[in-house]
């Protein structure tokens, strides 16, 4: 597979209805690592992830993968805050990305079954995906995102509404994927989660990267007043 990383953003901006939601952002994502995107609500975390993944068009600036965008898209995956489940069986949900890329049904299902076992959903394979609980849905979304072995995985607060056990299971899956070489970029609110998983932190404030650095340093001794307030649990506007 052709390497698509690093990803470079140069002066990238997202505006909607004349209002700037994000940017300008200059950023380089290296081929390896686990980045936590942090910041108060409305800081632009989701917009940044969607921009990098190609779900948003930049209003200004540019985004460059190592390969043309169309090729890069095939090697990325995205897990949404509220998982989107297709109205079909759990197994077929996970097999769907393979089917889109021309896999035969049986082969796709076999690999999907394998992934369901990895995320602990093997028993649910034949159930309609729509009856799954929030945690199960998010595990399904993870398996579906990872099944094509993406080079980079974006996650938008995947554990926002989950109980402790689901969160632990999902973090285990993410750690394993990271260990296997998947580049991970995850928006999170949860300082503990960032500490447990992330190698580096991007702190967004008012649509711009306000502070960035190794996770341990950022969490222990933030450089800016806003980051200090954020970590200290204060309300940051």
């Amino acid at each position, binding site marked *: 597979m052709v390497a698509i990383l690093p990803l470079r953003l140069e002066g990238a901006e997202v505006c909607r209805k004349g209002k700037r939601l994000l940017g300008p952002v200059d950023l380089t994502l290296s081929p390896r690592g686990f980045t936590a995107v942090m910041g108060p609500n409305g800081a632009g975390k989701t917009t940044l992830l969607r921009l990098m993944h190609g*779900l948003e068009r930049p209003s200004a600036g540019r985004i460059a993968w190592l390969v043309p965008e169309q090729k890069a898209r095939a090697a990325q995956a995205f897990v*949404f805050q509220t998982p989107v489940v*297709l109205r*079909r*069986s759990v197994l077929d949900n996970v097999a*769907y*990305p393979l089917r*889109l890329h021309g896999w035969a049904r049986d082969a796709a299902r076999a690999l999907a079954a394998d992934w369901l076992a990895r995320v602990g959903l093997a028993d649910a394979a034949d159930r309609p995906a729509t009856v799954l609980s929030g945690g199960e849905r998010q595990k399904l979304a993870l398996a579906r995102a990872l099944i094509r072995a993406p080079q980079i995985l974006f996650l938008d607060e995947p554990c926002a509404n989950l109980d402790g056990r689901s969160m632990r299971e999902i973090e285990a899956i993410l750690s394993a994927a990271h260990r296997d070489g998947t580049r991970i970029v995850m928006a999170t609110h949860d300082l503990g989660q960032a500490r447990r998983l992330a190698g580096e932190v991007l702190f967004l404030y008012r649509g711009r990267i306000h502070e960035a650095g190794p996770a341990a340093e950022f969490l222990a001794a933030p450089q800016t007043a806003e980051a200090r307030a954020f970590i200290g649990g204060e309300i940051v506007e």
Partner: protein
Amino acid sequence: MNEILQGMARAAWLVVTLDADLVEIALRSLQVTLTAVAIASAIGLPLGALLAVSRFRHRRAAIATLNALMGLPPVVVGLVVYLLLSRSGPFGVFGLLFTPTAMIVAQVMLLTPLIASIAHQAMRDLWADYHDLLISLNASRAQRIRALIWDGRRALLTAALAGFGRGIGEVGAIMIVGGNIDHSTRVLTTAIALETAKGDFALALGLGFVLIALALAVNFAIHGLARTEAGSRW
């Protein structure tokens, strides 16, 4: 009240004795409306899905028009189809007026906007759900439409059944283009209109109960089939 009871008794008698005329017109009702629903669905369902996933200049106007066409008055559609198919009209050479085919044509015109509009609404909601995921997975437009139609098949079935409901009970259009000819274009609704005109309310009502029972039976049968299918898949 008495007449309603008589009507029920009459309906029961017609059904129990498998009255030959009744069987004939009931089968013709089914033939005409099921054919019209099949054709209208073949046009309307993909059209609804396409409208849901496409962005083009006059999309809003197209959708508003489609929704308005849902309320097409059957009598007007019947009259237009009549004038089109009449020997002195543009399609007169085919000699289709006063045949079941003409009734199917009129019903297709009535049902297509209804089915497309309901399908569009169902597909639009589903597309709102799926939009981000399918874009993220890099699905082509054909793949998107296929996913919507397949995963929305229950809702699409509902759209088709709504079309069937409107078609099977419709009298205004098929009376005009079919002519209610005995043994040729007489269906349950036109027979009911005829018997009402003759003042034979019991028979008219009896036929009415048969019509309702038929509509219910088709709905239950199709829902039953859909559920069996779902069961084997899930």
